[in-house]
């Protein structure tokens, strides 16, 4: 019989189920149970309201765009960090994690201070008619900020493990840089990029602390879905707040499952020997 390094299957699985149950499933079940108080009619009314729809659109739409931007910029930044040697690289590498460590409210206040019409960057944008703070653009910015490390940190190890000689081989066979990138480098990175995208997206959808300070919070325009939940709580209306939470959860879950299915598909495709 093979000896295992970690405790046997039974014990590990027991821990896994208990821990996930306590930390993830129980709170979520409580949420769903609380939400059931408002009934189907209540849910229907809630989710046909233009205000709820606008907020969900901003939260999910913003998160989607932010995740796209993060995948694009994240690829470039990770590439530079992994492939280039330059002074200060290690410091830059450590900086990436800052959005993880910073309390989100601090991040939100800092971003607002910088991008407000009288802020360091905002004062140069304002004369050009570009408003960032207190607009949906500000929401997007905060979402980019909190999601960025997810992309870099998932991409980094994969990029590190990519052998350079494959590129050299492609080049020596006459591939243009564009062809090398699209046909040699991108395919094995695609599943990881998707993982990074999904993580950044999930983080941005539920983000409250940093977004709230820069959003402006005007209904139908710059109001995010988590703020609607907070508003229901202010009215001591726990059931509606929970219902909003459940729907956001269902939305996110569907999205994540779809992404992971797509990811599996691309991985299979990436692994087909050329």
């Amino acid at each position, binding site marked *: 019989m093979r000896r295992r390094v970690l405790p046997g299957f039974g014990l590990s699985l027991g821990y896994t189920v208990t821990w996930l149950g306590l930390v993830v499933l*129980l*709170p979520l079940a*409580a*949420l769903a149970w*609380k939400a059931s108080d408002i009934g189907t009619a209540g849910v229907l009314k809630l989710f046909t309201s233009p*205000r709820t729809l606008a907020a969900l659109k901003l939260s999910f739409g913003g998160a989607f765009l932010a995740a796209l931007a993060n995948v694009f910029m994240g690829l470039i930044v990770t590439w530079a960090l992994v492939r280039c040697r330059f002074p200060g690289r290690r410091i830059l590498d450590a900086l990436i994690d800052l959005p993880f460590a910073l309390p989100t409210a601090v991040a939100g*206040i800092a971003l*607002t*201070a910088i991008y*407000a*019409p*009288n*802020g360091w960057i905002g004062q140069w944008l304002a004369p050009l008619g570009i408003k960032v*703070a*207190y607009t949906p653009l500000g929401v997007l910015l905060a979402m980019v900020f909190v999601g960025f490390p997810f992309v870099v940190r998932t991409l980094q190890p994969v990029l590190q493990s990519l052998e350079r000689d494959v590129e050299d081989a492609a080049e020596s066979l006459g591939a243009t840089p564009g062809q090398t990138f699209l046909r040699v480098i991108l395919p094995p990175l695609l599943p990881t990029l998707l993982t990074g995208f999904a993580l950044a997206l999930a983080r941005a959808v539920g983000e409250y602390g940093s977004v*709230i*300070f820069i959003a*402006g*919070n*005007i*209904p*139908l*325009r710059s*109001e995010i879905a988590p*703020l609607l939940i*907070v*508003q*229901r*709580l*202010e*009215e*001591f*209306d*726990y059931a*509606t707040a929970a219902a909003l939470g459940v729907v956001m959860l269902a939305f996110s879950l569907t999205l994540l499952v779809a992404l992971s299915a797509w990811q599996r598909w691309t991985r299979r495709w990436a692994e087909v020997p050329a």
Partner: protein
Amino acid sequence: MMKIRIALLALSAATMSLPVVAKDVTLLNVSYDPTRELYKSLNSAFAADWKAKHGDTVTIRMSHGGSGKQARAVVDGLPADVVTLALAYDIDAIADRGLTGKDWQTRLPENASPYTSAIVFLVRKGNPKGIHDWGDLVRNGIQVVTPNPKTSGGARWNFLAAWGYALKQPGGNDDKARAFVKSLYQHVPVLDTGARGATNTFTQRGIGDVLVAWENEALLAKREPGGDQFDIVTPSVTILAEPPVAVVDKNATDHGTREVADAYLKFLYTPQAQDIEARNFYRPRSADVAAKYAAQFPDVKTFTLAEVFGDWRKAQAKFFAEGAVFDQIGPGN
């Protein structure tokens, strides 16, 4: 929610199992955000007073946060002996869950509100836009900063102040008030979730021509570095904001702190405490203390919530509940 509740239960179990040494009493005062400095002074004054009279040592712990959030924490098990919140609606919610008597507001003088404030305007230095009264806020090109009444108790007073002003104009009625307040919120570029956030937006970010604020927050902002960049404008008529206080019966009984908790809240009405409140920019109830601080608090015509709107339950249902007036006429509409 569940996790918080469990944590709070653990916390309350820990506090209750502390050995009660004969003469040491600990109170937990759950309050709202801008009262930090105020209660720091009040607590040491009360502790000294109680020690002199009874020989016991009283320690008062504080918890600050948005008024509504604080009320929810108490409902969910935060073991507050007393609550000192921004509006009666939040204490009503605690009473609705049976944690304190529904008659809480009649147990202490002055609607159980030992100090008050008024809703005033903070404008840029020299008042360049010439803002003198509520009517000026809806002029073309004026930007008004006020927090979101859906998330901020303080902002609900602001809303009601504007509504009451419109009602009290010649020929004023509900329709006209509604039109006025709707137009007012169309001048609001940013709806912060809390009063401090709105103050920052106005003072630090340079947004807006006027901040609708509690007088104590406006006076505090003027005292901050850079506060000379602002002037306070007192409108012709405004609402008297009455932040209320109450003992949380169930917790005080469980902790055996009832007597001290009662005395603590009564202390807030004494001349000594009224003086501290005035120094922290809250309007004192005591006429003597008010006279002493007359320079700080200009005379202003005020109306109370009870006079114009009945009580907080009615005001909440009519204006701020889901789908009520604010949702119909607020910004974005």
